[in-house]
């Protein structure tokens, strides 16, 4: 119990430090942390569906883009906070709307199906934009300052992490993990698997929607090609896998490690860093097949697994 209290204290301290970042750090550091928190929010929300139920989704970019577009369309018409929240809610609603049929599809088929979904939404928005506005792409004026955006992402990132934590350690979470392990057995054991997956899908979509809405303002220019880019989904998966795929801590660590390492390399070796990064990913997988966190955890817990 004391250990747990210490842990909570430590986390609170980190959170407090994060709150203070804009006060003492340069804009560059703030923007780096903004980036970091964005990836944390995306990865933590991703594991709620994909980490816990094993339904690996490449659809995060669809929700990210949807949130971004929602914000772009409503910006200056509705208040900022409301826009961000509704960006998330739109994605939640969208995920709920398509959830049942989509989640009947399993395994690699689901992976590709969600990839198809995000490409589909991309082209849908391109055509919509042309029909509505005549051109593709929007410029957003009078966007909030860096600090506002930073605190927004901080809230969303913290929210995603806390949600992922509580889902994992709840009755709901046990249900989701059962689905991941043996979906039929879980169903026969009284778990309403369709509803559970559906809920997880919705929760998982809520956060990228908000992140997308915030990031649209940060970019101040968006077009469907960039906001629906599959790169977002791929990077989230890499982060989650590096962290060990199903842990709140793992996703956090995966996001932090990949963001910071790539930042460090990127500043030093503009031409080589992607190659080094690719090699690091392969290296980690080869020598730590269960994620970077796993060997450390094993050492700490001394649990024979």
């Amino acid at each position, binding site marked *: 119990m004391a250990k747990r209290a210490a842990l909570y204290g430590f986390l609170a301290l980190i959170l407090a430090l994060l709150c203070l970042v804009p006060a003492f750090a340069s804009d560059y550091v703030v923007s780096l942390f903004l980036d970091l928190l964005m990836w944390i929010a995306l990865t933590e929300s991703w594991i709620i569906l994909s980490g816990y139920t094993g339904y690996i989704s490449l659809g995060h970019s669809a929700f990210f883009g949807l949130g971004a577009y929602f914000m772009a369309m409503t910006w200056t018409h509705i208040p900022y906070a409301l826009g961000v929240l509704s960006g998330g809610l739109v994605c939640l609603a969208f995920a709920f709307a398509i959830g049942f049929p989509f989640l*009947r599809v*399993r395994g*690699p088929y689901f992976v*590709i199906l969600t990839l198809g979904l995000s490409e589909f939404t*991309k082209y849908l928005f391109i055509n919509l934009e042309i029909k509505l506005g005549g051109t593709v792409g929007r410029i957003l004026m009078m966007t909030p300052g860096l600090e506002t955006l930073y605190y927004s992402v901080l809230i969303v990132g913290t929210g995603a992490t806390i949600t992922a934590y509580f889902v994992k350690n709840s009755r709901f979470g046990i249900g989701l993990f059962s689905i991941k392990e043996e979906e039929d057995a879980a169903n026969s054991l009284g778990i309403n698997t369709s509803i559970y997956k559906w809920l997880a899908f919705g929760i998982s979509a809520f956060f990228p929607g908000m992140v997308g809405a915030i990031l649209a303002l940060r970019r101040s220019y968006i077009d469907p090609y960039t906001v629906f880019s599959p790169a977002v989904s791929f990077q989230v*998966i890499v982060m989650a896998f590096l962290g060990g795929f199903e842990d709140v801590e793992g996703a956090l660590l995966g996001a932090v490690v990949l963001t910071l390492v790539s930042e460090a390399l990127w500043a030093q070796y503009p031409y080589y860093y*992607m190659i080094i990064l690719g090699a690091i*990913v392969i290296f980690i997988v080869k020598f730590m097949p*269960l994620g970077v966190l796993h060997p450390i955890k094993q050492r700490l817990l001394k649990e024979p697994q």
Partner: protein
Amino acid sequence: MELTRILQILSAGLIIGGIYALIAVGLNLIYGTMRLLNIAHGELIMLGAYVTYWLYTLYGVSPLISMILVSAFSALIGLIVCWSIFLPIIKTSKSAAVLESNSLLIFFGLSVIFSNLASLLWTADIRGYSYMTKVFYILGVPLMHNRLLAFLVAVVVCILSYLLLQKTMLGKAIRALIQDREASQLVGINARFIYIFSFCLGFAMAGLAGCLLSMFYEITPFMGLPYTIVAFIVIVLGGLGNIFGSLMGGFLLGLLETIGVSLTSPGLRPILSYSIFILIILVRPKGIFGRGVY
């Protein structure tokens, strides 16, 4: 609609479909035998295209000869990658799920390395060359020689690989492995050899596709991803592990796209093909032809 236009549409669909099929069959071979989703497939196409380009522009090597050289080169990459990374990982993986996710990561790493290496070595410039640009008329439909050639090679290679699976002992062993990994090992099939073989074959087919595409499309280090996505869609349409399904799926997608476009507007093509794809998967969650080997 006049007849030549219909023929034009059909031939365009078949040609693009043949190339889709070639790309998808290579990808599906690796997925079927090893359960590895190769998201670096498009990058191998890119490498194949570059090698063909350089051989042609620097040494005047005809792309016809490059087809063989590039296939061999890609197979060699496949051999190295398979032997140095995947065989050890398959051996040590604790479960199929861990293997599947880790292989995804490794291929991701490879795709990043390949595309950035290409950009570093050869700059990110758009490249291209002209080869066999004479136009040829079949039933009044104009076709450029290079596209016709690409189509024929793609179809022949697809049919050959299909026959390989159907008619030879090796092919039967591969099919057995695709159907039931454990049982096939019990009856004495050398899984290790088949892994390496199908890996190399899959890579060679990607390289070959790159060689063919380089004759008429532009080449850049980051050209791979769209091809990977198309290949994924085709193999899912045809059924994972189902080589015949991929062949058919490639043609189906090619024809659907061109016919759909000619009926509506080319701008709607992606929406059309992705919505058809999504609908098919929702109705038939295991692809049109399902799993299994024909």
